[in-house]
């Protein structure tokens, strides 16, 4: 029996397989996919990766510079960090805390720290890295600390979760609005179509940041972190659904002319069956591509709003809130490591953009 050739495989492959094969050829997009998956894994295990409580402030550890982990102690593999000690400033008599290179605090894998809950399923106090015999103020300050002495690495982990999920929730809301309005626009046509299209044009020609700011500032002060979180996603989505609606409408209109839709119609398929069984699989990949291009815009929006102090509010932690600390030059001169929070923002936006490009190229595997 003859083994199936590549051409045979191509002929019987499903659309999803074809899309995947084509996507795999796009190297940069594959790398980006891995990066994005890693970021979401971090988001999932944020508390596990955090080394100290991201909310716990401590005057002793204010503005500690990033501390490397020393792996070898006296030639043996025993990772440690240096402890913190208080020194009396000879001029001002103020007690200042610095790194004490005379005292080593050893690390342990899966050590115990603050208690956290995994997706609300179970509670644990186990973290990837912990300290053995730590004194008050000691910590693994991989990326340094902020003014209130909170560990930047731990805060960055938790911020990743908040910023990445806000993008997902926001995109879901936009997707719902976009598919609904874009679909209605394409199916009904006529006046409805014109009104929706003009609405899209109007929304796109408004400066968004002032409007977001205005709406976000009106959120009541006594709302909980969760309420603010959802309100912000809704505010961002309200102006962000237009691109998705255009994609949906465009694809819908062009697919309606295809032969296979005509064939399904002639075979007596119902309107619903034609849309969901025949048309939807054809443009699902386009929607996924549009979504992955919309996500970075969402993330930038949230980061910008929080950065200006009108998005999420402390004690919530997001990339924007972390960057807010780095807003003025005096702070940056004193603690340049606060700018580190910019790196994940840039990396994740780049990754989503490359991923989106790759998906868009792969979305039409017959082309």
């Amino acid at each position: 029996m003859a083994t199936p050739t590549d051409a045979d495989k191509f002929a019987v492959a499903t659309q999803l397989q074809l899309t995947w094969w084509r996507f795999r050829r796009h190297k940069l997009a594959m790398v980006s996919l891995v990066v994005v998956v890693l970021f979401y894994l971090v988001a999932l295990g944020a508390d596990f990766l955090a080394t100290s409580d991201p909310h716990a402030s401590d005057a002793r550890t204010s503005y500690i510079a990033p501390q490397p982990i020393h792996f070898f102690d006296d030639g043996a593999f025993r990772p440690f960090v240096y402890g913190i000690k208080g020194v009396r400033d000879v001029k001002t008599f103020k007690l200042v805390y610095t790194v004490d290179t005379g005292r080593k605090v050893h690390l342990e894998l899966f050590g115990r720290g603050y208690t956290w809950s995994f997706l609300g399923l179970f509670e644990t106090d186990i973290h990837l890295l912990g300290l053995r015999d730590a004194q008050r103020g000691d910590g693994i300050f991989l990326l340094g600390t902020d003014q209130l002495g909170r560990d930047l690495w731990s805060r960055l982990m938790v911020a990743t979760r908040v910023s990445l999920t806000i993008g997902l929730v926001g995109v879901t809301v936009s997707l719902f609005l976009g598919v609904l309005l874009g679909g209605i626009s394409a199916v009904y046509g006529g006046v409805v179509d014109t009104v929706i299209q003009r609405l899209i044009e109007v929304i796109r020609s408004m400066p968004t940041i002032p409007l977001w700011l205005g709406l976000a500032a009106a959120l009541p002060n006594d709302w909980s972190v969760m309420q603010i979180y959802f309100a912000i996603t809704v505010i961002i989505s309200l102006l962000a659904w237009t691109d998705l609606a255009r994609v949906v409408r465009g694809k819908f209109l062009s697919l309606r002319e295809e032969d296979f839709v005509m064939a399904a119609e002639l075979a007596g398929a119902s309107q619903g069956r034609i849309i969901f069984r025949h048309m939807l699989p054809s443009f699902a990949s386009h929607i996924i591509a549009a979504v992955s291009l919309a996500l970075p815009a969402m993330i930038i929006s949230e980061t910008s709003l929080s950065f200006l102090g009108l998005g999420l509010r402390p004690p919530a932690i997001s990339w924007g809130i972390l960057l807010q600390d780095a807003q003025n030059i005096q702070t940056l001169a004193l603690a340049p490591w606060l700018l580190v929070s910019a790196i994940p923002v840039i990396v994740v936006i780049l990754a989503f953009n490359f991923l989106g490009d790759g998906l868009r190229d792969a979305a039409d595997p017959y082309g």
Partner: protein
Amino acid sequence: MIAFVIRRLLLGLVTVWLISVLSFAIIQLPPGDFVSAYIAQQAASGSPVSAEAADAMRQEYGLGRPFYVQYGKWLGRILHGNLGESMEWRRPVSEVIGDRIWLTLLLSFAALVITWGLALPIGIYSAVRQYSWGDYLFTLVGFIGIAVPNFLLALIVMYFAFRLFGASVGGLFSSEMMLAPWGWPKFWDLMKHLPLPAIILALGGTAQLIRIMRANLLDELRRPYVVTARAKGLSETKVILKYPVRAALNPFASNIAYLFPYLVSGSIIISIVLGLPTVGPLLVKALVAQDMFLAGAIVLLLGVMTVIGTFISDLVLMWVEPRLRHQMD
């Protein structure tokens, strides 16, 4: 073409109307009404408002009446040039905003000019010299422009300027010119300070336009008519500039309509980082302090200016590029 201009104008009016409704909604959003807030603030600062004056104010703003009545009264006052009173500054809103709105527009406009001025030649270069070193360099810069939100870019530039030159790069005027009356020296000072924030603001949009221009032109360059033109012995400049570039401009133009709102939005946030005297910092401060008349007026003014700016850029493009006139009809 006239039909197109009229359509754009009507759409602009609808946008302005929608922005005015939203601005008024923003003014109304905080709990309690603004007259009570105003009276409370006046009382707190030692100059209480008499009961009659308070009633007169309530009457004037139409409080207690439906939303559309209040909105109508507010719009009526605005059309007469009265933007209301800023509670925080205790001065008319128009005075508080002053030059700032023009500086915002100037900054956005400068960024627009830079975006066009850079994206067009670089896009052409990248397409004509595809896969050259220059192309790779610009692609890299383009990706940075897309991935780094402009407020982050402003932060990073500020940090490095401080570290490397020990200089602050913020502001639109040097300190001695800040309060000087307008005149040539002050204008010149502004011109010296403008390019850096304008470039920071322009980078994101430029990066996107370069990519669009490059892709469009690459498509055009593969067309048979280009081969024909070359075969007939046209000079290389003419082969490229005269036909394919003009054809590639078409989809380019539809994106430009959305560039100006994007730049105005961006100017708010980079102004805060770089400490520019535009309406950006004023807006955020007003919103944080719930000084709603000031905030609403700024949102409205920015919206209206954006619509006008977009409309003008549409007209300019139509005048520059005859093919668009037909495309858009």
